[in-house]
């Protein structure tokens, strides 16, 4: 008989509240190192001063407990639920939403969710969260959080390429999208790229790509080479910090690929801003 492990949803809720606090106020070391590296490479006063302010911003946010950015985003929550895990307590979606509601109230975060896209009435709680739940083998339980601001999300892009289109065409498209977006998604960017799948999986993968351990390239050399090519191209595009011009347009490029239809080659882009608020844990 298969073993089973029991997890109470109160534990999931508490962990998620912690992750929301952590991501809202604390920039991880990888981001600070990345900002410092970009600053050293900039040659104009505006670009260097912009990076100085972003570095100081991370210090003030942690010391004064003021959110890194006033757009504390929507909560995008990724859950990997082991098939042998038995959940006890509340319905898991309710547990996630009550964590969001509690954290946004308790930590004085901005409530930026409207209940209907056309009527546009604020829910006042920053719920609902946007939840992606996957069933995985075994007894694991993994929770990943991405807080996503509107300015960055609004620059998202999807293009359905022909399967015969070249990798160079994909790189051109990515550069073109980032240059046209310019200052709007608050560069230096952490670019998530979803390649393959159906249109919707490519979009989700453009977010999932950024859940990877910070500062690492793709584990497959073909894709890590492609990431490096895109990274080089973006950092010679001239967009620079906050689009004022400069060398630091991207802090990282992360691809997540997926199988696709013989006729399809979707490429989805998540132009995540410098305020990359991502964290995860295993229970």
């Amino acid at each position, binding site marked *: 008989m298969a073993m089973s492990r029991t997890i109470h949803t109160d534990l999931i809720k508490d962990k998620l509240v912690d992750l929301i606090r952590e991501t809202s106020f604390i920039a991880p070391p990888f981001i600070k190192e990345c900002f410092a590296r970009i600053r050293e490479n900039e040659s104009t*006063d505006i670009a260097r*001063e912009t990076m100085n302010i*972003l570095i100081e911003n991370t210090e003030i946010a942690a010391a*004064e407990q003021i959110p890194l950015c006033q*757009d504390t985003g929507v909560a995008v929550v990724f859950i990997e639920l082991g098939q042998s895990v038995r959940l006890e307590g509340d319905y898991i979606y309710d547990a996630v939403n009550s964590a969001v509601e509690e954290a946004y109230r308790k930590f004085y975060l*901005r409530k930026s969710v409207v209940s209907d896209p056309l009527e546009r009435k604020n829910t006042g709680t920053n719920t609902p969260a946007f939840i992606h739940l996957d069933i995985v083998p075994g007894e694991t339980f993994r929770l990943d959080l991405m807080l996503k601001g509107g300015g960055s999300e609004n620059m998202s892009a999807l293009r359905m390429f022909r399967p015969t289109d070249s990798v160079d065409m994909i790189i051109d498209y990515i550069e073109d999208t980032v240059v046209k977006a310019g*200052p709007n998604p608050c560069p230096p960017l952490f670019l998530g790229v979803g390649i393959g799948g159906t249109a919707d999986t490519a979009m989700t993968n453009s977010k999932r790509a950024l859940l990877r351990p910070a500062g690492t390239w793709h584990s497959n050399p073909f894709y890590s080479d492609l990431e490096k090519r895109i990274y080089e191209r973006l950092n010679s595009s001239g967009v620079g910090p906050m689009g*004022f011009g400069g060398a630091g347009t991207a802090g990282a490029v992360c691809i997540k690929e997926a199988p696709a239809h013989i006729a399809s080659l979707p490429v989805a882009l998540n132009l995540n801003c410098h305020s990359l608020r991502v964290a995860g844990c295993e229970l």
Partner: protein
Amino acid sequence: MEWKRIELPLNDEVIRGLRAGCMCMLYGKLLTARDKAHQRIAGMIARGEDLPFSLAGETIYYVGPTPPAPGRIIGAAGPTTSSRMDPFSGTMLGLGIKGMIGKGKRDLETKELIQKYKAVYFSSIGGAGAYLSMRITASRVIAFDDLATEAVYELEVSGFPVIVACDMYGGDIYEHQV
């Protein structure tokens, strides 16, 4: 290049000296307004109603701060995307505003209006919410308090960093791009 000290409210002489790319530190009073406040102002003007405050000579900051934690003047308070306010540029500049602060590009019509009204558009540092919060020394709601984070606030700033993005001569810092 040094940061240039600018006192608010802006006047014509100061605005004449501002060119795209100029780094400025602002001192003095600003008004905040974002999507809903702009929409409401435009609606009131269209219906011939009087605004509960004057916009003449003011500098408008596009911001929706986080709620202040106890003991704080304001929460995180970085700029929001300015292009969403482009449709209201004619109304706002017509009512006498002289400066706008946000982040990102403006449309062609707004840039022409900035030249016509001899005004200026500054970009602040997007995403520097905590840093900019510390540069705000006073905050009070002056109108539309039902709009919560989108209400109109009067802010007092001290050493608030902005870059001249669009000047009265048609200069645009983002023009080096597509």
